[in-house]
């Protein structure tokens, strides 16, 4: 009995690692994801499906760009800005990249402080993340406005292949929508953290499990995914 008392309640026996672990987990006739809650597993599976959506967008862009006989507009020139008399290529996109990466950094730290049950720091860092995300969307709105003023449309543009506009608006528009929804959810979850819903076990959206700050990590998974997609868009659409 003394040995039993030392065991943590609910602790399961040690699990195999490596390939044997994969085989054991998947063939256990139980849940395959042993130490991951349903919420986190479902977020990962949603992100996987989202990966395929963005893959299809980037693939259709690749197909359009590879098969057209008309020259493709040079993104380095299209997205250049003149700041203080200097003509700097791609500068706005570079700033947007740094803003989004910074928001990912603050989000990762918010998750960390969430698990340490530091309510104030978690909420503040989540709000900073949301602010950086909103800044990103704002810069994207500026970029869209600038390009539309210069005559870029989904069916034509002044510099070359017509598919440039449709690919651009489709890909960055879908990504911007993801960022926007992320900002909305960040503010919603930050408000719950601030109010202490996860400490008091207040009933509501995602908060019925008392003392569980895992939702901050799940929110973080979504946010990092948005940053991840931008890494690929930056490489394939803006730099290629």
């Amino acid at each position, binding site marked *: 009995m003394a040995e039993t008392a030392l065991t*943590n*309640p609910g602790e399961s026996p040690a699990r195999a690692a490596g390939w044997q672990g*994969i085989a054991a987990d998947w063939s256990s006739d139980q849940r395959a994801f042993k130490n991951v809650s349903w919420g986190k597993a479902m977020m990962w599976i949603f992100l996987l499906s989202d990966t395929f959506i963005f893959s299809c967008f980037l693939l259709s862009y690749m197909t359009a760009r590879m098969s057209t006989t008309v020259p493709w507009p040079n993104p380095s020139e299209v997205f250049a800005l003149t700041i203080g008399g200097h003509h700097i290529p791609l500068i706005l996109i570079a700033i947007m990249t740094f803003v989004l990466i910074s928001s990912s950094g603050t989000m990762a730290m918010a998750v960390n402080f969430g698990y340490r049950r530091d309510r104030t720091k978690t909420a503040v860092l989540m709000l900073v993340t949301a602010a950086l995300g909103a800044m990103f969307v704002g810069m994207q709105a500026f970029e869209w406005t600038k390009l539309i003023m210069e005559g870029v449309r989904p069916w034509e543009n002044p510099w070359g292949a017509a598919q440039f506009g449709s690919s651009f608006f489709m890909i960055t528009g879908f990504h911007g929508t993801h960022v926007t929804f992320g900002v909305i959810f960040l503010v919603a979850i930050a408000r719950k953290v601030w109010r202490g819903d996860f400490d008091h076990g207040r009933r509501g959206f995602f908060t019925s499990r008392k003392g569980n700050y895992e939702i901050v*990590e799940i929110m973080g998974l979504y946010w990092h995914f948005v940053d991840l997609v931008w890494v690929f868009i930056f490489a394939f659409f803006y730099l290629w």
Partner: protein
Amino acid sequence: MTNVAVHLEAQQPSLQAHAHDAIATGAAHEKGQQHPIKLYLVVWGWLFVLSACSYLVDYFGLQGYLRWSLILLFMMLKAGLIVAVFMHMAWERLALAYAILLPPVLVLVFVAIMVFESEYTHLIRVLFFASPT
């Protein structure tokens, strides 16, 4: 046996808060993903450096295979850092990591198919659009 476990829970309120989850998710995950803040700051710094590098590839106007290989290298490094550290995939069990990370690799098959397809389309366009008959 069960009584002892319940008694333990009552003694440790912090454990009790997690008790429901501990049963569902296993005690190894009980406290969630706990890593030093410094790790995140270091990764953040690396992401900045790698982004700056990929921007400089464009700024200095590198072309050809050097450009493509550098862009893809920096892209994969950044993606790897974000998934492994920020999304904590490095600390998850392999059953989850493989289930999530392997399917996107199959997209490469789709890429190969579409490369063939678009080269064919391009060839047909060159043959029938470009040459005046």
